[in-house]
C-alpha cells in the first residue's frame, strides 16, 4: 500500500532524511517515532508530494509519487501537523471544499460530508465557523478534511500536538476507525505512549535515519528485561565510571549509556534490586545522588538505549 525505498532528502550539505525505507499495509497503522527534528515531517512531506525526494522511490497504492504524482495523491489523505482550515467558512463548507478537491460530487459528496461530520462529532456544529471552535474541535475538523474522500493511505503528522486529553482520545478513535475501515495509516509522533497504543508496527527515526523497526512487541524484545536508570547529582568523571563498572560482574546487563558531571544514565536488569549497591559505589567514588528515575522497558527506554538521549529532547 505504502512503500518507501531508500528515501534521501538533502538541503545542501544537510541530510534531513538519510536512506529511509519502510512499508505499511492496508488496515494497519505504521508509526514513525522520533524526537523533534528527527526527519519525520520531511519524510511525510516527501510522501505527500510537498517535497521532492533527492533520491529514492515512494509508491502509494502502486503509484510513484514523483512519476505518477496525480494518481498517487488521489489515494492519499493528509492531516498536517499545523491546522489547515478556512476559519471563515463553516465546518461543513470546509469538508465540502476539500471533498471536491479530491473529485467528490453530488450525493456521494453529501453522504461523505454527513458521515464525516458525525464521525468527528461536529454534526451539531456543522454550520458554525471554525474560528469559534475550541482547539480540539479544530483538530477534529482538520482530521475530517483529510479523510473526507476516504483515502487508501492516510498520513498523520503529529496530529495530537497541543490537544487536550479528551480530544486526543477522540482522535485516537478516529485513527483506529480509519484503520478498521481498511486504510493504511502512517502516523508520526514523538509520544511513545501514542505509538504503543496505536501502531501495529513502527520505525524509530533519529537524525534522519531509521535506527529500529518492527512491531511494538519486537522492539520491546530488543530491550529484554533491561531498565533505564537515570541518576542526577555529582559524578566525578575519573572515578565514577570505574566504580560503577566494578559491579558489572554481579549485575546482569549493566551498561553506562551516558555520563556527565551532573547526570548518569545506566541500563541494567532488575534495577530496583541493585539500587543500594550502585549508590554505595558512587558514594565510594566521591560522587553523590540527588535524584533517581527508574523506567521499566518501553519504547522510550529503547530510544534511550539506542541513542543515549530522551525521546523528547
Amino acid at each position, binding site marked *: 500500500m505504502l512503500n518507501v525505498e531508500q528515501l534521501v532528502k538533502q538541503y545542501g550539505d544537510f541530510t534531513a532524511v538519510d536512506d529511509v525505507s519502510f512499508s505499511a499495509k492496508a488496515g494497519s497503522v505504521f508509526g514513525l517515532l522520533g524526537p523533534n527534528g528527527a526527519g519525520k515531517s520531511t519524510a511525510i512531506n516527501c510522501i505527500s508530494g510537498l517535497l521532492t525526494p533527492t533520491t529514492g522511490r515512494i509508491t502509494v497504492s502502486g503509484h510513484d509519487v514523483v512519476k505518477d504524482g496525480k494518481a498517487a495523491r488521489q489515494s492519499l489523505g493528509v492531516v*498536517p501537523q499545523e491546522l489547515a482550515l478556512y476559519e471563515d467558512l463553516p465546518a461543513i463548507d470546509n469538508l465540502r*471544499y476539500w471533498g471536491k478537491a479530491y473529485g467528490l460530487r453530488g450525493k456521494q459528496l453529501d453522504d461523505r460530508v454527513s458521515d464525516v461530520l458525525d464521525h468527528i462529532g461536529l454534526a451539531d456544529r456543522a454550520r458554525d465557523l471554525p474560528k469559534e471552535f475550541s482547539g480540539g474541535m479544530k483538530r477534529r475538523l482538520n482530521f475530517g478534511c483529510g479523510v473526507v474522500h476516504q483515502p487508501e493511505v492516510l498520513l498523520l503528522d503529529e496530529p495530537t500536538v497541543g490537544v487536550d486529553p479528551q480530544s486526543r482520545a477522540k482522535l485516537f478513535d478516529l485513527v483506529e476507525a480509519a484503520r478498521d475501515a481498511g486504510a493504511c495509516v502512517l502516523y508520526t509522533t514523538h509520544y511513545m505512549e501514542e505509538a504503543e497504543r496505536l501502531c501495529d508496527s513502527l520505525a524509530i527515526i533519529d537524525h534522519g535515519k531509521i535506527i529500529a523497526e518492527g512491531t511494538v512487541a519486537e522492539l520491546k524484545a530488543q530491550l529484554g528485561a533491561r531498565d533505564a536508570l537515570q541518576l542526577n547529582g555529582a559524578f566525578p568523571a575519573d572515578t565514577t565510571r570505574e566504580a560503577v563498572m566494578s559491579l558489572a560482574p554481579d549485575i546482569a546487563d549493566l551498561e553506562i549509556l551516558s555520563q556527565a558531571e551532573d547526570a548518569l544514565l545506566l541500563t541494567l536488569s532488575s534495577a530496583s534490586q541493585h539500587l543500594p549497591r550502585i549508590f554505595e559505589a558512587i558514594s565510594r567514588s566521591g560522587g553523590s545522588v540527588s535524584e533517581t528515575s527508574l523506567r521499566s522497558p518501553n519504547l522510550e527506554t529503547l530510544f534511550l538505549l539506542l541513542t543515549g538521549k530522551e525521546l523528547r529532547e
Partner: protein
Amino acid sequence: MGFLLASVRKDLRRWTQDKTALLIWLGIPFLIGGLITSMVDGGGGSPTGVLLIADQDDSLLSGFIVGAYSQDQLGDLLIVEQVSVEEGEARISDGDASGFLTIPEGFQDAFLDETPVTLTLKTNPSQTILPGIIEDVTEILLDAGFYAQRLLGPEIKEIQNSGFDAMPADAFVAGISVDIQHKIDAVMPKLSPLLFDIEIVEPPPKEPTPDIALLFLPGIALMAVLFSANGLAADYWQERDAGTLRRLVSAPGALMQFVVGKALAALVLIAAIVAITLCIGFVYHGVAWTKFFSSLLWVSLGGVGLYAWFAALQMLFPNNHAANLMTTILLFPLMMAGGSFFPLAALPDWIADIGRLSPNGYVVDRLSTELTAPDAWSIDLRSWLTLLAMTVSGLALSTWRLRSGFARK
C-alpha cells in the same frame, strides 16, 4: 470544473465577509475623486457676485447704467441690488458684496452738460476676480457714454428738455430720428467698409473637447481597482498562513483550478466595484450608457490582470509583511503615473508616455478613449488581446510560484 466553481464560491464568501475592506476600496477613490472633480468642475457653476448700486439720480441715464450690469453674460456673473447709500456702505464694509457703486444726484444733467461728475465705486478687497470685472465694465460704460455724448449730445439734450409729461408729438419724434440717422450716415463711411480686409478662415474641424472632469473618471475607477486588486492578492499569504495551500498541493490536479478560481472570484468582486464607480461617473458626467458594458468589461479584465501580477509579486517576497509593504508602496507611483491623480492628458508628455506603459495607465488611457469616443466599443482588438495576455501571464506566474515552493512552506 466542480472544484473551480467551488473555489470561486469559497473565495467570494470569504472576501465578502470583510465589509470594511470593500468600503475602503470603494471609499478612498470616491473621496479623492470627489474632491478632485469638485475642484475641477467647481460644482458645475460660475462664480457670482453681488453689485450694490445706490442710484441717487434716478434718471434715464442712471437707469441705463444700472440695467447695463444685468445684460447678457454679465447678468450671469453679477446680481445687481439697488440699495440706499447707508445700506451699501454698511454691506460693502461687511464684505457682503463684490462692489458698491454710487451714482450721485445730477449725474444725467452733468453728463449732458459735459460738466465733471464723479461715480464712486468701492470694491471688496477680499475678492479678486469679480471686483475687477465690475471695474472694467464700469470704465467701458463710461467710455461708451462719452462717445455717445459726443455724437448725439444735442439730440439727447433735446429729448431731455422736451419732458415726458405727455406723449411726444409725432413730428418731434420724426425730426429727432432724422437728425440721428443723418449723423449715423455721416459716421458710417468712416467705419464701414473697414479699411482692412477680413479673411475668415474656418479652423479645421476639431474633435469635441471632452469635459475635463470626465477625464478623471478612468483614473478614479482604476484607483478603486488597484486598491482591491492589491488587497485580494494578499489572500495567497493568508491562505499560506492558514495552511490550506499545503493541503491544496497534496490534492491531485487542483492547483490550476484553484488559481483560476481565485481570479474569477476577483473578477466578480472587482467588476462589482467598477460597476458602482462607473455608474456614479456615468450619471454625474452624462456618459452614454451604450458605453457602460464595454467600459466595465475593459476595466474588470484589467483589474484581474493587475490582481494576478500583484499576487505573483507578493509571492516572491519572503514574508507577508514585506510583500504587503512593497506592493502598497508600488501602488502610489502606479496611481501617480497611471492617471489616477491627474488625467494622462494633463500630465507632461514624457510622464504621460511612461504612464501609458504602466498596466493601470494602459487601462486608463483606453478607457478615456472609450468614454470620449463618439461610439461604444472603440477600444481596438489589439488592446484587448494585450490586456488578456497580461492577465494570463500574471496567472501563469502565480501558478508557477505556487508550484515552485510558495505553497509548500
